[in-house]
């Protein structure tokens, strides 16, 4: 912050600091504009690039002009080396990873930010000025910012790594009902640490450094246990929540350094991330508390019994049915993503389009493993986004739809969400596939969806099952339609 009282010597006007602060203002504006533009399809890409420029400016200005107690930034060669290493690794990972692995990648990068915030807190703690401690004791704003930054950053890092492992499939769910009590106890313990450290009567913060490491370890345990029991459909909510955690942790750094760019950027992400989290919870008709402490899936036994039987359909029948329809709606789910079938799916819709069939996609907000996951995948396959319709919008039109093709989706078309109050997904908005004239369900087998509950849609009289891997099924279907 510009300190005019320190400018007794008028010849020493702090040009550098002024330039830096102005750059921070510009960076903050670019972050805000970037986020704003990211929320519209046409401007989203430019918005992202704009925010990236803001970040670049802020970084350069900090390296060139930042002063702490009159000291400029040192170790510049090392800083540049670290930035180059981070850039190369980050760039390569981001470019190489498959589109289906996007959710875990976001989680991974989020964890990196959390870890950086935690490291900053750990290193700054022993350096809290002893003047400040002499004046106000340990209970001052700086110590609070450091401790909160450490706690939130560490939880975000540990949690994100677990979320990364889960989505990547090498960490399973841990569902123990008593775990939530353990978690609440650990959370209280962490807050206890903060109170304890802030009420110590010491001359220098460095006397308490060992407590910082203990607190770090406990926060790691909390982060791990916090995410361990959460599974399946709730994963996106957790990633979004951890995302906003990291934002808050970054803002703590802004508070500590009196750095407005960090403060605005961090809080902006913190609040935007929280509201996104709430939006996602709403899409599943669940409360945030329910997601965090509730144990989802497996528990709910359907009160409704399956009536009717599973009926299969042959490829040629399916091809005929589709080719002679007027309106077809495709409901994609995670099965489409794992089978990497988005391209062949688009091929099917193009061929049908040539035959005069109107093909649209019904996108459920939480289909896949992240909100908008399906949009990203289908966009990768060049499906124009005008063809992707949100479930609320397409539902009224489904009774006039000849065929709904459900590809690897389950819970998002499960009528139990409307009929069965005992079902764990009761009340969740769904794609009302059963209202269509015919339903074709492509599935690998009779396994249950991620929420592990029975789906009565599969037993419906209008439903025909097409078992097999989504990619090969679609490929065969395309060949059949072509040969008609």
């Amino acid at each position, binding site marked *: 912050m510009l300190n005019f009282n320190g400018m007794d010597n008028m010849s020493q006007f702090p040009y550098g600091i002024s330039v830096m602060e102005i750059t921070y203002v510009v960076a903050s504006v670019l*972050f805000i504009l*970037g*986020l704003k533009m990211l*929320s519209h*399809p*046409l401007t989203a*890409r430019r918005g*992202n690039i704009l*925010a990236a420029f803001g*970040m670049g400016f*802020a970084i350069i200005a900090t*390296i060139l002009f*930042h002063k702490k107690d009159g000291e400029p930034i040192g*170790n*510049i060669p*090392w800083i540049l080396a*670290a930035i180059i290493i*981070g*850039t190369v690794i*980050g*760039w390569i990972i*981001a*470019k190489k*990873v498959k*589109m289906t692995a996007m*959710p875990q*990648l976001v989680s991974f*990068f*989020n964890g*990196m*930010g959390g870890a*950086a*915030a935690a*490291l*900053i807190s*750990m*290193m700054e703690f022993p350096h809290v000025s002893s003047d400040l401690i002499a004046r106000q004791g340990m209970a001052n*704003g700086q110590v609070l910012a450091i401790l909160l930054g450490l706690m939130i950053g560490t939880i975000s890092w540990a949690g994100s790594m677990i979320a990364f492992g889960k989505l990547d499939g090498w960490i399973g769910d841990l569902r123990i009902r008593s775990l939530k009590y353990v978690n609440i106890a650990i959370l209280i313990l962490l807050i206890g640490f903060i109170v304890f450290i802030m009420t110590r009567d010491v001359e220098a913060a460095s006397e308490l450094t060992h407590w910082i490491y203990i607190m770090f370890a406990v926060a790691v345990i909390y982060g791990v246990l916090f995410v361990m029991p959460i599974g399946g459909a709730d994963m996106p909510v957790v990633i*979004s929540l951890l*995302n906003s955690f*990291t934002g808050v*942790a*970054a803002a703590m*750094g*802004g*508070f500590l350094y009196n750095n407005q760019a960090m*403060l605005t*950027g*961090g*809080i902006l*992400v*913190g*609040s935007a991330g*929280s509201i996104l989290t709430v939006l996602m919870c709403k899409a599943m008709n669940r409360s945030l508390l329910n997601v965090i402490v509730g144990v989802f899936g497996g528990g709910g036994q359907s009160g409704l019994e399956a009536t009717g039987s599973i009926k299969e359909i042959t490829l040629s029948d399916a091809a005929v049915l589709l080719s002679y329809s007027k309106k077809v709606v495709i409901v994609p789910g995670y099965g489409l993503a794992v089978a990497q079938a988005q391209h062949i799916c688009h091929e099917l819709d193009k061929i049908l389009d040539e035959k005069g069939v109107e093909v649209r996609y019904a996108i459920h*907000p939480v289909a896949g493993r992240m909100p908008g*996951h399906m*949009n*990203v995948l289908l966009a990768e396959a060049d499906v*124009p*986004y005008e063809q992707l319709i949100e479930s609320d919008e397409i539902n009224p039109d489904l009774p006039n739809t000849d065929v709904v093709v459900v590809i690897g989706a389950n819970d998002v078309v499960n009528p139990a969400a409307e009929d069965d109050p005992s079902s764990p997904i009761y009340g969740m908005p769904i794609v009302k596939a059963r209202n269509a004239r015919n339903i074709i369900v492509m599935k690998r087998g009779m396994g249950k969806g991620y929420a592990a509950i029975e789906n009565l849609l599969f037993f419906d009289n209008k439903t025909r099952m097409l078992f097999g891997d989504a990619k090969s099924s679609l490929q065969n279907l395309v060949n059949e339609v072509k040969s008609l």
Partner: protein
Amino acid sequence: MENILGFFLQHREAIFIVILSVFLGIEVISHVPAILHTPLMSGANAIHGVVIIGAIIVMGHAETTGSMILGFLAVVLGTLNVVGGFVVTDRMLEMFKKKK
């Protein structure tokens, strides 16, 4: 009580920014279509990489070898967050095309 009031007085600018940013964040994001949720989350993820500024400051004033190593690590991780975040978001958005 005095402590708490004093705290507010001392940090009023930061508290002001925090409160306004909270509303701004909510306002900016509340009209986003579900289609853009994933890229938006990813873009926001990149923006909180601004924590890298803190890492640079820490590294820039590190004196002992230990703090040099930790600072170096913090800058690397912060850069990963920033660069990875923006590149991944761009890759996602690259695929949103308008129908010709």
